[in-house]
């Protein structure tokens, strides 16, 4: 009797827990998702749309600046078609992720394999840059980039994004290299292999998943940046996606809900897909990678 009662109690807790968790996650997502597939007439309708359209998403890739939507409805006055910031965001994130994975690969290998004086200090330095709040760097970096002529360029923005991506890539790849048995390399070294070729030929190919993870997370870190883009970019043809969002507002009011929701969902879905694919590496990378040494 008592056992039966406890079993039912547990079942009840699980069901209620599932419902609360689902509501907590899904309610904030609902409005933007349903608006992004609505026709303009139904944009502010609280219920689900009576008919669904994907036109709002297709329009994101329309290269003509003043292309009219199929239906009337207030349209945001965008300085550039949305495809321009989409392209800029991709260029910046891909280059920043590539560079930080390459530099981080060598640095991570150094921290995982070599023993030397000052290694502890180096490790602390990288952890320091990992948690240092980047907003403090924004103003001086802007002044510096201005003086070397990289202000308002995508190159400048990409370089500055390494402040987010590089510490992460180093820590992530270090923890990855540490999991690879050192014996594999040692036997190669005995066979007369040099250190760099044992790294390039043995450890690196085994670390392909680690390299992919580093690239993907660095990509999302760069993709997620608003602050540096805001401070460094002033020409609208160089804008990245976060800067595009504010054009859908006028005096704090949303003027083009369907356009805005489509941009936001598209921008959000890219890191979400990447995270879902690499789900099991997230904890390894972010928590354990930084903690274990």
């Amino acid at each position, binding site marked *: 009797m008592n056992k039966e009662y406890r079993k039912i109690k*547990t079942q009840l807790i*699980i069901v209620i827990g*599932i419902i609360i*968790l689902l509501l*907590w*996650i899904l*309610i*904030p997502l*609902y*409005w*933007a998702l349903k608006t992004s597939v609505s026709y303009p007439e139904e944009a*502010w309708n*609280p219920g689900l749309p009576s008919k669904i359209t994907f036109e709002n998403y297709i329009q994101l890739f329309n290269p003509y600046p003043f292309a009219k939507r199929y239906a009337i409805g207030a349209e945001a006055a965008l300085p550039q078609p949305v495809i321009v910031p989409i392209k800029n965001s991709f260029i910046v994130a891909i280059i920043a992720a590539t560079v930080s994975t390459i*530099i*981080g690969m*060598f*640095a991570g290998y*150094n921290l995982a394999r070599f023993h*030397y004086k000052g290694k502890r200090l180096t490790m602390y*330095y*990288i952890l*320091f*840059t990992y*948690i*240092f*709040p*980047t*907003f*403090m*760097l*924004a*103003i*001086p970096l802007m*002044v*510096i980039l201005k003086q070397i002529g990289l202000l308002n360029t995508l190159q400048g923005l990409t*370089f500055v994004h*390494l*402040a987010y991506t*590089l510490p992460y890539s180093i820590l992530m790849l270090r923890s990855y290299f540490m999991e690879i048995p050192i014996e594999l390399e040692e036997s190669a070294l005995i066979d007369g292999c040099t*250190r760099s070729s044992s790294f390039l030929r043995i450890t690196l190919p085994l670390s392909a998943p680690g390299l992919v993870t580093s690239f993907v997370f660095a990509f999302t870190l760069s*993709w*997620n940046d*608003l*602050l540096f883009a805001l401070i460094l970019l002033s020409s609208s043809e160089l804008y990245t996606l*976060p800067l595009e*969002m504010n054009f859908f507002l006028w005096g704090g009011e*949303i003027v083009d*809900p369907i356009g805005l*929701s489509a941009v*936001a969902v598209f921008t*959000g879905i890219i*890191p*979400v897909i990447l995270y*879902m694919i690499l*789900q099991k590496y*997230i*904890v390894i990378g972010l*928590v354990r990678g*930084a*903690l274990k040494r």
Partner: protein
Amino acid sequence: MKYKKALYEWIYILPALITLTILFIFPLFFNFWISFQEKSLGKEASFVGLKNYIKVFNSSVLYVSLLNTFIYAFTAVFFKTIIGLTVALFLNMKFKGRGFLRGLSILPWALPMYVVCVLFWFNYDAKGTFNNLLRFFGLKPIHWLGFDYAMPSVILINVWHGWPFFFMGILAGLQAVPIELYESAEIDGASSFQKFIHITLPFIKPVILTVALLSLMWTMGDFTTIYMMTSGGPVDKTLTIPMASFQIAFFREVDIPLAAAYTIVILPIYLVLIFITLRQMA
């Protein structure tokens, strides 16, 4: 030979160290240097000594932004810890659909912060989700980003976006607790609450502390949420430190040296927190 080996090993990490030094250490010192200058439009920068620092200490922005940042960060981290811990304990139970819920729980955190803010533009809108829900339950609509509710509203966004980080960290900690401990406690007749207090909590305490400290750093440095939702308003109600430094530099005073002095003044607070966090992580 020994030197050659040492040099060879350093070459691996040198590009990273140079890049990080250009991006972190150099700007920090440069900021220090800027903070002693004065630059008015069309004029050459000139050295003014401590003038900017006196201005910073005499302006209420410093104290208002400090207070707001502490309210924002500590409240948000508190709720993120509670929710992250609860969901981690829940999704550590065995039931069907657990794997799916674990995956779904990462979703808020996987979204870029500015996208989360756009979601909440829709939710907080007068015609949007939350006011419709209030009306549905027969309650009065709220002005979510108005003077009274602005701070709780931005905290809610930060909590909704950030709790999965706690969930993931704590869940990893829970999975590392040896099952034998629970088994022997059960033989001794311990209740589930006793098991939680005496076995689970001591085991995951270091993880919770580390995750909370990391999150506290990031929340105190969060610019995006405030910029997207309120820009520090209404009437400085949500003016946090990152927002204030941006406001001083580009909106209000349009004074970059003054903003530099402001960030130097608050730098020690962040350095102390970083020191505590690094010690906890080590």
